[in-house]
């Protein structure tokens, strides 16, 4: 049995599989699959060693660095990149309004890391936001407006509940 051909997982609601060629190889980095094979370039490469978080995506709702995930380990899992985040997610507007995006290269990963935080802690404190985003480096904003955006989005979501 060839594992590569049985491999399948869900990316942004769509099933990818080794059998139909939408997964080229189990040893491919998830980052490369997203950017080069799936053509979804919202996930960025900043360092290639899990340090900057620009490539962060959610796997089963948990934030991971896609540069350090071989797709062979995603069998049966659900992956969400920025392209799969619902456009109604309050983080999107909160980031735009707060000025939490400048050059924008860290923004998709930052938003997904924030989404993972808000899913497990819908009403975080500033310190919890700072802890949750410590794996996502931003060189433009000094982070203050990112904190504000996440706290603001938490308020919006809280209003829905």
């Amino acid at each position, binding site marked *: 049995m060839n594992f590569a051909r049985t491999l399948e997982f869900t990316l942004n609601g769509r099933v990818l599989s080794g059998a139909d060629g939408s997964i080229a190889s189990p040893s491919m980095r998830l980052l490369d699959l997203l*950017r*080069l094979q799936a053509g*979804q*370039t*919202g*996930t*960025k*490469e*900043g*360092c*290639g*060693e899990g*340090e*900057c978080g*620009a490539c962060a995506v959610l796997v089963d709702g948990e934030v991971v660095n896609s540069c350090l995930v071989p797709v062979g380990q995603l069998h049966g899992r659900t992956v969400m*990149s*920025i*392209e799969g985040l619902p*456009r109604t997610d309050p*983080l*999107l507007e909160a*980031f*735009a*309004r*707060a*000025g939490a*995006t*400048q*050059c*924008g*290269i*860290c*923004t*998709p990963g930052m*938003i997904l890391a924030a989404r993972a935080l808000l899913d497990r802690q819908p009403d975080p404190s*500033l310190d919890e*936001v*700072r*802890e949750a*985003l*410590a*794996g*996502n*480096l*931003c*060189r*433009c*904003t*000094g*982070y*203050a*407006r*990112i*904190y*504000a955006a996440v706290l603001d989005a938490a308020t919006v979501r809280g209003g829905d509940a």
Partner: protein
Amino acid sequence: MPIPERRDGFPGTRGAVGAPVVRKDAAAKVLGEARYVDDLVYPGMLYGATVRTRAAGGTIERIEFGPGFDWSSFVVVAAADIPGVNATRMIEQDQPVLACDRFRHAGEPVLLLAHPDRGLLQEALAAVTVHESPNPAPVFSIDDALALRGEVCPGNVFRDYLMSRGDLAAGEAAAEVVFEGRFETGAQEHVYIEPQGMIAHVDAGGVLVVEGSMQCPYYVLDTLTAVTGRDAGAVRVVHCTTGGGFGGKEEYPSHIAAHAALLSLKAGGRPVKLVYDRAEDMLATPKRHPSRTLVRIGARRDGRLSFLDMDFALDGGAYTTLSPVVLSRGVIHAPGPYACANARVRGRAVATNHPPNGAFRGFGAPQSIFAIEQAMDGLARQLGMTPLELRRVNMLRPGDRSVPGQLIDDTTDFDAVLEQALRESDYLARQEAFAASNAANAAAGRPLRKGIGLATFHHGAGFTGNGEVVLASEARVRANAEGRVQVVASSSEMGQGNTTTLCQVVAGALGLPLDWVTQAPVDTHDVPDSGPTVASRTCMIVGLIVEQAARGLRAELIGKAGLPATAADEHAFAAACARYLDAHPRLEAQARYEPPANVAWDETVFEGSPYASYAWATYVAEVDIDLTTCEVALSGFTAVQEVGRVVNPVIAAGQVEGGVVQGIGFALFEKVVRDGNGAMANNRMTNYIIPTTADVPPVRVFFQEQPGGTGPSGAKGLGELPMDGPGPAILSAVNFALGTRIACLPVLPEDVLAALQAAPAPEVA
């Protein structure tokens, strides 16, 4: 969040200036839809790679292509393949695009490869060996270079400036207290999160098109025409969404563009993508210049400065690049915002065998301002005054002349800036409380120490001296028949928000809703040269030009298309545009920068008014130091500045917050470690440490707005200012907490420990 309230619009506008509008690029960026160079893929695209030197200078003996590869399947470019000049066009043309014989530093590009398979390309890159005859006596320090222990270039000095005022000897004779010190700052890497990259191809019309990540499209064009021998009509430079610059994408993109272009030309015009990975980016691209400043400063007992003598030197690295202008800005800012009648600042940009250093936010000023601020603290100590008192005595005030010779005639109330910073940070009370708690902790053997420090400074916006006259920047504004307007300029968005602020200025001038105004894509075949996107000049200088162009457009519509001169809304504007375009082929107005009358600078004697506007600031840093580990944690930061009219308060505050955190990194974390060849040894994000969210509390930002700036509606330049203050303020806080006299940045825990061991150490639990 202390964002100032928006002001009413100035008369005749829709209030777009001063409004905290959402950035124009925000939606594309939060959705991940903005396209950066590495996101672009073309059919038939090749990937490029660069073979580099290893030694710290020497001679290239030969290049060996290893076995096991079909080298004919690779595009290979060496210096001999360059059709034009083998040099990037900067101030001097001493830096080769590809080294071919003698070279000066590790990491110098020698050979370029391209191939459609990037995996194979990476393997092939490792199979090319450059046989070098290394320079036996490389020079790695400013002191060694100045002492001529080894020669990088004749004399080892790229530039030597002298700014001299008054009578130094008389000032020394009058001094009752003198402080002397030596201050150093290290190299700093930009760490824009998007690494550098370019894609080149030749289009169907035979035009060489180069697109990528950059700050200065016309710099890139200038190098490309020189290197390829093509005229500007046969080369097109297109700016992609750029993931941060901070000066790091000012000069080096010209190299990468030239490399990609040479590969594409050799490959018959096929697209070639040359995008660096992080390690190569950190290894190859310029850093902030390391500095060494010797200061002698004297005062009368009352604190009034009687003389200032500074010897300021920058490590320029192996080629000239932008070092002369970085140096001149450093020299001009060296005396700080203080009055001193007898002053001398000598500045030298020194050649070493390090990879060249270059532009980085602040551009020489953070280094010299660090030195003067620390020297002021030292002098205050010697005088028995507080640092605050000494600054109050000597601060420049309206009617004074600065050391460079500029009459302080803007409306800035620098005392008010200082006072607000003291108030917002509760400086005096905290200073007292921290001293008391430090004494109590020392007595009880507890390891916590607290410190507070301040820096007062100003930063000139725009090119230094006659630079803006020479640039003679041009921009246009054009409209279509629906009344939709484009700002047409080469000023490049890299995150700082200038697309939005320029559109706000134009929308304000035309009385239009902001969404009627956009910036045209930055493409050298369409946009004029509005100058490089550097030097805190875009909002202030280019903003003024586009405002003038917008007024010209409006006048044209009033004169020729019946636009009512008053009370015209956007519908009247659109109707006038439609009428105009029925009769004319295009609707466009151009403007060129006219320097204000107060700017006159004599570079030969370094005298005059080097900048049209200065932003003024006082920053206060608070630190907690744990003597168990000697770690310094920032516990608070207050940044108060006067920046003229704030065009967009969210963007402006974001510039300050981001700049301050880069300054925190410069002060406490960021150290470029060199290997034996002078190359960056910690060229990974894992080992070059920039602040994370856990390291920085929210920075408290306050603006004072006095419309004294020479930019649109009284705006001043802002982008670089926040880089100047954190270094000296943080080090002052550290020295306050520990009673040490540390004089170098960055100050890492290892340095704190060494300083405590050199001084009588407090007891540690």
